């Protein structure tokens, strides 16, 4: 009896999770790639094999280039901010000061609140005659169409993502700040190094692995942005705030162009996969070692 358990137990343990992962991960994964070779122009029930047709359509579509440009502009707007600013805040909070818990709670609050509520709150700040434009006018500028002007919409959305992410990455930095040897700071104090010099020479080199980790995970989540755009701009105006996941959503679930949406998904897949492989192989190696 016992040997029966010993032989099959590992597989029985893995079975439930395995079934879920096969049905809702591995099959869809290969199906995404498969669907990208089919055309759904004629009928959603009768797709035709068109080889690389969807990819050809992709690279000849101006909207695709617009969307990819948006996605990367958004990425490069969001990531540096989410890498540097939370580190700065974590260093400040890590000083021996009062009210630390209160600061942490307030700065972390945007992280736990639903992204939909956050986006609605910002939509209200961004309103044409809203409070942000009041400040613009007080400082002598013209009111800005934060979400209605194609020049600004993408950046307005990026601000929401940054605002919502700061507390999250700050906590990651705080956890690894605990491992920086305190005597190095004391040595700096004896040398009379200032705040900036102290942290550039001690903290930053020590946190390099964490900085790299935050860079990759914030880049991955920037690639996946959806809710902010869905709630605030629907990708508009004139595709100015449309990024890749929103475009996939639109093509798949509104236009029912499953083949084209799948080709887009493969593009997203390849980009995120590249970031993830770097992340898992280099920065989170310890956690994923067999």
């Amino acid at each position, binding site marked *: 009896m016992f040997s029966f358990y010993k032989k099959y*137990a*590992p597989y029985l*343990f*893995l079975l*439930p*999770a*395995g079934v*879920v992962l096969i*049905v*809702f*991960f*591995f*099959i*869809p994964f290969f199906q995404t790639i498969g669907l990208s070779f089919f055309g759904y122009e004629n009928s959603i029930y009768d797709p035709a094999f068109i080889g690389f047709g969807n990819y050809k359509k992709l690279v000849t579509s101006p909207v695709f280039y617009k969307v990819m440009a948006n996605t990367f502009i958004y990425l490069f707007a969001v990531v540096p901010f989410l890498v540097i600013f939370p580190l700065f*805040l974590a260093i*400040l909070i890590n*000083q021996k000061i009062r009210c630390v818990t*209160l600061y*942490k*709670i*307030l*700065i*972390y*609050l*945007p992280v736990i*609140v*639903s992204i*939909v*509520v956050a986006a*609605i*709150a910002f939509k*209200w*700040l961004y*309103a044409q005659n809203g409070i942000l434009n*009041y400040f613009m006018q007080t400082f002598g500028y013209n009111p800005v169409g934060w979400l209605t002007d194609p020049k600004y919409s993408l950046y307005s959305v990026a601000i929401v993502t940054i*605002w919502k992410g*700061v*507390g999250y990455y700050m*906590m990651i930095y705080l*956890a690894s700040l605990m491992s920086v040897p305190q005597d190095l700071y004391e040595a700096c104090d004896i040398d009379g190094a200032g705040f900036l010099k102290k942290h550039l020479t001690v903290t930053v080199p020590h946190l390099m692995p964490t900085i790299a980790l935050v860079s990759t995970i914030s880049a*991955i*989540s920037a*690639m*996946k942005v*959806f809710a902010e755009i869905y*709630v605030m701009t629907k990708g508009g105006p004139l595709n100015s705030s449309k990024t890749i*996941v929103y475009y*996939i959503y639109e093509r*798949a*679930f509104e236009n029912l162009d*499953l083949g084209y949406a799948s080709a887009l*998904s493969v593009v997203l*897949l390849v980009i*995120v*996969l590249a970031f*993830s*492989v770097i992340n898992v192989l280099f920065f989170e190696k310890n*956690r*994923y070692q*067999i």
Partner: protein
Amino acid sequence: MIRKFVEKLSIHSILIFVSLLSIFPFIWLISTSLKGLDENIFAYPPVLIPQQFTWNNYVGVWYKVNFMGYFVNSMIVAGLTVFLNLLLSSLAAYPLARMNFAGKKIFFFAILATIMVPFQAIMLPVYLITIKLHLLDSVNNIMGYLGLVMPFAVSAFGIFLMRQAFLTVPKEMEEAAIVDGCNVFQVFFKVVLPMVKPTLAVLAIFTFIGSWGEFLWPSIVLTKDAMYTLPVGVNNLQGMFSSNWRFIAAGSILSTVPIVIFFLALQKYFISGENDGAVKG
């Protein structure tokens, strides 16, 4: 001495400023939600403290929108997601931490691979499969809930988190239980699982938050208003009350209350800085 004081003062001013930035969008939403009908919510200069303080907007949305229903739906979906994640992740993690078997490496890397592929890239076929399995709210409510939960019933993140926890359990505990006549499943449920309760709690809390805030998947699969979870219901306020920002604000704040209470009650899990292992990509 003076230098120390100036340093502390500037640190506090920066942190107070950032804290205010973090909560200001909510403060402004709350302020709007408490303003009466005769008060101009677009007043220049803006007025933070409502001049005609009223709860009417809250009463109004409460009667027009099925918040209690959305809340219950969110609870059912998040609760079931948490339960399945705890069970399936720890079951799958145990052999990966403790047993030697043929194909272990394949299982390990297959699970690791799922971390690298974003849900957004495979959501379309996931939806097609969900339709095939009839896990839709148009079939019945239970199938609807299952459709919301099943694609997130287990995560590689959870499996690896639990595996790390199992690796720290002393082997002697299990050996003693086997000598006492336990089979491997009894060892797992009665000896090993109780020893990793703190990690289970961490996994439960972060899975709950993730599931509670999920928006993309529910907005794809849900068709019936009665099945809406809170994020979908709140997004829907925009359409219902088009430019009635008093109601939209009141509804948004109302929907946020439960998760803020949850956060404040369990804040040590989020902000103690000891849950480095719970970092989720």
